[in-house]
């Protein structure tokens, strides 16, 4: 590791100032579970680590039935899945937060960090997209909001400009009769990177899909928002036939590569299977089930 300096920022303003002054070589540190191995492994060079996890705005975890969930970018997974409001209202976020890494990783890693790391296989991003989450960003030129589906621009690349900091995520309150699910396939039981991941959220109305959003992990250079699934399901009955059709749409939208985790064909097949399973669970949850 080549970096030489560490600063603990006390405020968003201070963090933005430090990150901007450091140019492209300053990096924000929250849980560090992706940042430190990358810095150590020479994936990027940095001369300044700005520790942002002590900043109050990055530690917010608050729910309002009207505004939804505000999730500070540095809140570690264990605090997210221990939160009563998250448990009660965001089963899809529970799915993701409880399966990122192991207990040690969950003690440090944040969903905000998972988003900023911008891995195509990131476990929390598909469900954030499915839930319509927005990234709240502060930078030298002020604040802006970016929909999570527009945040990642390539493997480990995103819309953050030099000096910009992800402060929090805003996740809308769940509608009545809605449900969400994140599901991934890994060959082990725990502690692995998704071969394919699927995040979905659905809203039902008298047995029909009122709306649906689906995003895929690990089948393209970024997490992939598959708008066509929502268009195909809206207004249709929530049954095996429509869910099977959604599986085919997801399979068709995926643009995976062949690598050590799976082949193109295998991953596309998984898109179909996991989409069907995730939608079925989300529908069940929308009806009040598990």
């Amino acid at each position: 590791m080549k970096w030489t300096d560490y600063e603990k920022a006390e405020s968003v303003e201070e963090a933005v100032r430090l990150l901007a002054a450091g140019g492209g070589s300053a990096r924000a540190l929250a849980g560090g579970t992706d940042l430190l191995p990358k810095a150590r492994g020479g994936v990027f060079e940095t001369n300044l680590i700005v520790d942002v996890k002590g900043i109050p705005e990055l530690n917010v975890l608050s729910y309002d039935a009207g505004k939804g969930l505000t999730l500070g970018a540095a809140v570690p997974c264990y605090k997210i899945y221990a939160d009563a409001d998250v448990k009660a209202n965001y089963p899809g976020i529970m799915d993701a937060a409880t399966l990122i890494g192991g207990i040690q990783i969950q003690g440090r890693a944040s969903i905000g960090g998972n988003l900023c790391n911008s891995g195509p296989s990131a476990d929390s991003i598909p469900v954030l997209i499915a839930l319509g989450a927005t990234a709240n960003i502060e930078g030298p030129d002020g604040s802006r909001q970016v929909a999570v589906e527009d945040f990642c621009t390539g493997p480990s690349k995103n819309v953050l400009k030099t000096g910009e900091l992800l402060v929090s995520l805003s996740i809308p309150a769940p509608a009545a009769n809605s449900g969400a699910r994140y599901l991934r396939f890994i060959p082990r039981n725990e502690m692995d990177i998704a071969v394919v991941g699927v995040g979905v959220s659905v809203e039902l109305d008298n047995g029909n899909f009122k709306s649906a959003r689906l995003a895929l992990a690990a089948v393209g250079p970024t997490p992939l928002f598959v708008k066509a699934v929502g268009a195909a399901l809206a207004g249709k009955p929530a049954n095996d036939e429509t869910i099977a059709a959604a599986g085919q749409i997801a399979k068709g939208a995926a643009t995976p590569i062949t690598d050590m985790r799976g082949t193109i064909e295998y991953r596309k097949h998984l898109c179909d299977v996991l989409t069907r399973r995730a939608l079925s669970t989300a529908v069940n949850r929308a009806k009040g089930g598990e």
Partner: protein
Amino acid sequence: MSSKTHVQTRINGEDVEFLCEPRQSLLECLRDVLGLTGTKEGCNDGNCGACTVNMDGRIVDSCLVLGVEAEGAEITTIEGVASADGLHPIQQAFLENAGLQCGICTPGFIISSKALLEAEPEPTEGRIRLWLAGNLCRCTGYDKIVRAVTDASEKMASA
């Protein structure tokens, strides 16, 4: 400019001060600066759990924490698990159930198991395997470790 940073922390119940470079991990600080070599280095990238320590009540991979982040923290390493009276019941259970062979992973497993039993005194086998998924062992095949944790749980409940 590369200067050393002064860090004040608590390790195994004692106030500790040390100097480290900002790039040094907590693992490096424990082992190379403070001589607390009970915490082991395995993969050094957060996969194996050999370097697990308890920091402010949570288990963490100390290779994924910077030494400077220990400022003001409360840390427990394997050196802080046994008491003057003898081994901790979890350590005793690992010995009695042959929950170790080469021993490199053992400090991490003990720290993780201790945190589990403090959070959930009577975990199921499934919960034990889930909690210990971040600790890799290449010798035992895990069954003996799971049995050791179950045994410790029962002995601690009846103690």
